[in-house]
């Protein structure tokens, strides 16, 4: 009996190492499946989110890009004008030349030439000054327009996000406009909403207010210097 008990105690489960290796393989397989499976699933939401936002800002950069060239092109047409004026000045030049030349001395001719040249220079300078001023004004106007456009894009983006959240009340009729003053933090979080002009329909005003709250945090502008704490947002039920 004791010999048997000893034999029993000595017995070990066979194939410990192969079992260990196989178990490790199974778990590696599981890890691979989980990694690949979950990573694959995370892609679709990304594209959905992008689809919503890419549409409005896309045209803006396209318009902005071609604008800078015009100011460079503009100086070219102006020189065309300069000859027009310059032609008037040289005209008197050749006329007096043949007349006094035979009659009087060379000094007079010289002086005349100098005077004409001076006049010409003054005219040129004035022209250049005017051009510079014009160009600066134009550039300012372009910058302001770009800023306005970017601001409008941003506000459009915000309104688009809010509009997605508006649940129109069932008894809505007509297309009245509601104006809201929205104060936000630089992070886009909405601090306060004030109804400036009611649409005349209580339900619609409330729906828009709820939608603004729900849209918090609001999208940020493309350039951070465009940010404004106070925004005036206008909504109409049939906005597209």
């Amino acid at each position: 009996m004791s010999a048997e008990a000893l034999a029993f105690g000595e017995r070990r489960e066979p194939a410990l190492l192969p079992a260990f290796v196989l178990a490790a393989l199974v778990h590696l397989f599981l890890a691979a499946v989980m990694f690949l499976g979950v990573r694959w699933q995370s892609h679709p939401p990304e594209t959905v989110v992008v689809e919503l936002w890419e549409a409005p800002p896309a045209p803006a950069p396209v318009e902005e890009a071609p604008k800078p060239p015009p100011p460079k092109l503009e100086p070219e047409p102006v020189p065309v004008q300069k000859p027009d004026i310059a032609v008037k000045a040289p005209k008197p030049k050749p006329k007096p030349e043949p007349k006094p030349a035979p009659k009087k001395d060379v000094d007079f001719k010289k002086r005349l030439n100098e005077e004409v040249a001076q006049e010409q220079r003054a005219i040129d300078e004035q022209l250049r000054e005017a051009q510079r001023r014009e160009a600066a004004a134009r550039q300012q106007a372009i910058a302001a327009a770009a800023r306005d456009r970017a601001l409008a894009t941003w506000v459009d983006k915000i309104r688009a996000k809010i509009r997605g959240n508006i649940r129109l009340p069932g008894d809505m009729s007509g297309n009245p406009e509601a104006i809201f003053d929205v104060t936000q933090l630089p992070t886009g979080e909405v601090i306060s909403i004030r109804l400036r002009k009611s649409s005349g329909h209580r339900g619609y005003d409330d729906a828009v207010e709820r939608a603004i709250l729900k849209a918090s945090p609001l999208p940020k502008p493309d350039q951070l210097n465009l940010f404004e704490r106070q925004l005036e947002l206008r909504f109409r039920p049939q906005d597209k």
Partner: protein
Amino acid sequence: MTVTQDIDIWTLVVNASVVVKVVLVLLIAVSFLSWMFIFQKWFAIRRARRQTEQFEREFWSGNELTALYQGAVTNRHTIGSLERVFEAGFREFAKLRGQRGGSDPSDMVNGARRAMRATFQREMDFLERHLAFLASTGSVSPYVGLFGTVWGIMHAFRSLANVQQATLAQVAPGIAEALVATAIGLFAAIPAVVAYNRYSHDIERLGNRFESFMEEFSNILHRQAVK
């Protein structure tokens, strides 16, 4: 955008709370052990079946009982369960027969039978080793995983309490990371349950085979004792 874009399993696990992490580690360890036992038992049962078949073939091919017994004693570390049962029974029988020359045949057979039954119990115990672990893995690890999930979801909702505007995006990552615990719990449990059912069935069949062999061998011993 509030949702993190790259939700892969690693970020989920790393962002999980401590309790969920502990649950995950525990489940992975349990799953690893249970798979190890699954493979081990698979090899062991296959070997036991092969050895049983081989011994039955040898036994019924009409070899001398003493020759078989000698073979079993010399190879006692490598022989299978059925051969051990045979060896224990025959040793007891030989002892009883040699002791008092002419003792009662039924006493001798009963003694051999008791010895065989003891060895049989021990062999069955050896074959069933670790099966209890598979059974408890199968029944408990889903609950452990569920506990991790519930804890993770509680965590996810608690962070929602101080937010005015509740959105799905704020809860979704928390719930996703919590559900990983359930997934791993089920991954540990399902194979364990399948293997437990399969192996306990296999071992029961082997046990039946041993028992019928014991009956037949007792008859042979009885015939020898009477002779």
